[in-house]
């Protein structure tokens, strides 16, 4: 059988600007999924709080600690902790949790994009079905949702101006293109059919 070779894809752009709007690839972070086992939630929360200075909160807000560490709830009994690359966060949390939680590195699974500038909320609102009005979607607010057809975690960095998208690495280019199309006044997905 003939060998099938996939065409080489260009390296993903790391920044585009349209008027006052900028879409940029954010630096890599270490991302860790922490899922406390039954009966160990308090102990795991305590461990994470001591290690990173953040609570495993049931709110819709991301908790931020010192040293660039943060944590948000990523679903039922699941939290994403994140911190600077090279901080050995996964190994540290796995050791500290000592079998009381499932600790899984997710660094390779996600890419982060930041949409910035005046009108950023309006562009983000073209893609997600979540109400982004600052009265409800304030700084640190997290939404697990869809941007078009792409699952994302949307985090408000500053109402109206800065929105972070956490997206599966294999879908990052598609999301980048969709946001770029929206920034140019187009309708994402309309040209793919």
């Amino acid at each position, binding site marked *: 059988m003939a060998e099938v070779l996939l065409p080489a894809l260009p390296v993903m752009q790391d920044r585009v600007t349209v008027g006052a709007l900028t879409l940029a690839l954010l630096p890599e972070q270490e991302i860790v999924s922490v899922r406390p086992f039954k009966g160990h939630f308090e102990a795991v929360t305590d461990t994470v709080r001591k290690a990173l200075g953040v609570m495993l909160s049931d709110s*819709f807000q991301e908790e931020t600690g010192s040293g660039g560490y943060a944590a948000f*709830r*990523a*679903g*039922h009994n699941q939290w994403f902790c994140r911190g600077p690359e090279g901080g050995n966060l996964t190994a540290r949390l796995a050791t500290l949790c000592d079998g009381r939680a499932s600790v899984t590195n997710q660094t390779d699974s996600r890419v982060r994009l930041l949409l910035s500038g005046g009108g950023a909320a309006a562009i983000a609102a073209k893609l997600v*079905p*979540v109400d982004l009005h600052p009265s409800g979607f304030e700084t640190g607010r997290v*939404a*697990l*949702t*869809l941007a078009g057809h792409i*699952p994302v975690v949307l985090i408000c960095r500053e109402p109206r101006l800065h929105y972070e998208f956490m997206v599966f690495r294999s879908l990052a280019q598609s999301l980048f293109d969709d946001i770029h199309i929206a920034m140019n006044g187009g309708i994402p997905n309309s040209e793919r059919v």
Partner: protein
Amino acid sequence: MRLTCPHCGPRGLEEFSYRGDATVRRPSLEAPEEDWIAYVYLRDNPCGAHKELWYHGSGCRAWLVVERNTLTHAVHSVNAVSVEDAP
């Protein structure tokens, strides 16, 4: 209609899928055939209070039990499924 997901907060209906009646329970393996036919095929269509399974596929991807009124459309509670909710 909006459902207030315990993990995600209030979200539009388009993020959820209806996954059936949450009150049906699997009969025992020894149960008569009629019980199994009822379990597989027969569903009530209540006018009033009801318990339903919903799946938050566009959000946290959790299965939820929604208590709502099919007559007034009032939603009384939305909770993550628990062991007790297993069919």
